[in-house]
């Protein structure tokens, strides 16, 4: 009887052209080569390697880490694809890790679906894949399943990425916006608005160059340190699109409380303040990709701050305000000038005031 020798490792395909064409989305050899050469090579892990239609995860292993599964998804369409402090790949991994982390989950597995416009360079795609892989590796998560589509020129703006993620939540962790109570303090882990300002400046149509990098970073380690020091933490959220102002409004609305923040203690770097002054923007509405807003009971505020400040991503952690029993749903700011103003949700996109 002829025995077919078991091939331990199948040979990987290689892309030999400089740019992505529709052939790479056709389901044939070209696509297989692209996946092998670009994604599999970068993400390399045993759950992904068989390239089956699904990754199969060990339930018992998950159950050991907690009693609930956290599951989230997010799409990334950032323009430009590379910016000071990161690129769309790093962002796509950090964004989903952070969405898991702020629920108190330990992030474990990610999926990655990429939509590519024909004509994009293979080298660029390799760079993005390796940026995703590096970020995931450093964060201790694995990208275990994925999908690649190539679309006609003009059907998407160069490249979109969707990542989904799962993580496990320990049984003693319970976070929710509705849990905020009057007296709680509102804490952030650092300077606000860097990502939004860096992106606006990187688009290059402002004729203004900013020495500001995006704060894009995975936050699960910081969150773990915070929850260990302040187990009574009521709620966490990463103030991405819509910025800090939007998150504060969501908390005030969900818990039917008022929130008062103090402009003097709200940390915004001078470069971002100056940038916003010139363009007529409000830094409270600028996106962050490495920040959390935390609502913490007053008796644990000091230990929470100490834990955050001891962490590399929380050096500038500070209390920016308080939850009060004022008009439910209202967020106000005590201005540096001594007045008070409402911090509202934006109706639409923040448009620069010029005239």
């Amino acid at each position, binding site marked *: 009887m002829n025995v077919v020798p078991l091939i331990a490792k199948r040979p990987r395909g290689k892309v030999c052209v400089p740019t992505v064409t529709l052939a790479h989305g056709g389901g044939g050899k070209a696509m297989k080569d692209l996946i092998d050469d670009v994604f599999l090579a970068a993400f390399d892990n045993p759950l992904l390697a068989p390239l089956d239609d699904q990754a199969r995860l060990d339930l018992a292993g998950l159950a050991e880490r907690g009693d609930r599964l956290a599951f989230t998804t997010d799409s990334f369409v950032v323009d430009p694809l590379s910016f000071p402090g990161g690129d769309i790949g790093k962002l796509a991994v950090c964004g989903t890790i952070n969405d898991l982390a702020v629920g108190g989950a330990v992030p474990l597995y990610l999926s990655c679906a990429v939509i590519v416009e024909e004509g994009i360079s293979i080298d660029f795609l390799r760079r993005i894949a390796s940026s995703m892989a590096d970020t995931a590796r450093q964060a201790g998560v694995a990208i275990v399943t994925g999908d690649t589509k190539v679309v006609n020129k003009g059907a998407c703006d160069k490249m979109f990425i969707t990542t989904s993620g799962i993580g496990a939540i320990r049984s003693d962790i319970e976070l929710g916006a509705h849990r905020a109570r009057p007296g709680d303090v509102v804490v952030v882990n650092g300077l606000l608005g860097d990502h939004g300002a860096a992106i606006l400046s990187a688009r290059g149509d402002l004729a203004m160059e900013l020495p500001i990098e995006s704060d894009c970073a995975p936050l699960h380690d910081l969150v773990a340190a915070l929850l260990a020091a302040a187990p009574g933490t009521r709620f966490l959220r990463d103030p991405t699109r819509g910025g800090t102002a939007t998150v504060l409004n969501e908390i005030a609305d969900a818990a039917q409380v008022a929130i008062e923040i103090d402009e003097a203690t709200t940390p915004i770097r001078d470069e971002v303040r100056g940038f916003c002054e010139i363009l007529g923007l409000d830094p409270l509405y600028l996106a962050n990709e490495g920040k959390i807003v935390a609502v913490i009971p007053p008796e644990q505020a000091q230990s929470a701050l100490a834990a955050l400040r001891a962490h590399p991503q929380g050096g500038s952690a500070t209390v920016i305000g308080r939850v009060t029993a004022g008009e439910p749903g209202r967020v106000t700011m005590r201005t540096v*000038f*001594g007045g008070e103003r*409402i911090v509202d949700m934006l109706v639409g996109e923040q448009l620069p005031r*010029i005239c």
Partner: protein
Amino acid sequence: MKYVDEYRDRGKAQILLREIEALAGSMEIPRTRPLHIMEVCGGHTHSIFRYGIEGMLPKSIELVHGPVCVLPMGRVDDCVAIAERPEVIFTTFGDAMRVPGSRKSLLQARADGADVRMVYSPMDALALARKNPGREVVFFGIGFETTMPSTALTVLQAEREGIKNFSVFCNHITIVPTIKAILDSPGLHLDGFLGPGHVSMVIGTAPYEFIARFYKKPMVVAGFEPLDVLQSIWMVLKQIKEGRCEIENEYARVVPDAGNSPALRAVARVYELREFFEWRGLGSIDHSGMKMRRAYARFDAERRFALPNVKIADPKSCQCGEVLKGVIKPWQCKVFGTACTPEKPLGALMVSSEGACAAYYRYGGAKRQRNEAYIEAGEA
């Protein structure tokens, strides 16, 4: 931030507020209403809300938020018609994109496929024209004398370079006839003005003399930092107290009394007065708008493109005009907060964050209670 934070100093604000309270307290103010001071410029309105200045003032002083750029629906429709032409790249300042026309706003036009781009200066629009010689680049010229010189200079630059695919849709407005129209309207109770700092940087302070001389109202040309606003309010009060009506300049670090003559020359070269210009809420105001001179016809989008140019009446229920003139408060308007909200604005004052109605809508409850309490106390 140097040169900015000095003008936001809390300690100095407290000193000024005490002075303002002392002045207001020593004046004989009509008991049935607070003193009304109108800020003419949206930039001041923005500062007043951003720093919470209104809530810091004594109840006997009320700020009336004056005319922001209130473009009538017909003009927005004209914009959309230009923008929807396939050869056109329509360029505009960001905050003009949301102003509703009778069919749609520029933001909606963009979603429907028009090439509408946000720029930060008319020079950016000219650069687009250089880069896209096969397209027609149109810049949406809006605003008072603050923005007028920059569009005029851009047109002159386009002329020098011989650029043929650039034009301006001119909707510039001029401040003096506008203030005059407000002062002439019946039922108006204004006690003084904060004059527009940036406009005055261009035109100087002399053009306002008629306000003091003929209408007997004090005006203080004011800067935009919160201490500027407080200082200017104090100066207006002092004039009222001393029975003076003068044009004073609080913003002398930026506003020369004679204005900026190169800017004025550029404006005079490119633009001339329109016989009348339609305002949303205020109706037609004689000589309040600017158009491009015949010599610059080739840069005039109004001449280059066929426009619908249909006059669209303001919605009947909309009372923007009365709010603008300080005759009624935003919340006294029939449609405030019901048919007219920031999500679905009927009137211009609900559109811009500087519009009095949008501001009241957001800053709502507390402030309204404060004002009503004062009115009741006065009537009792």
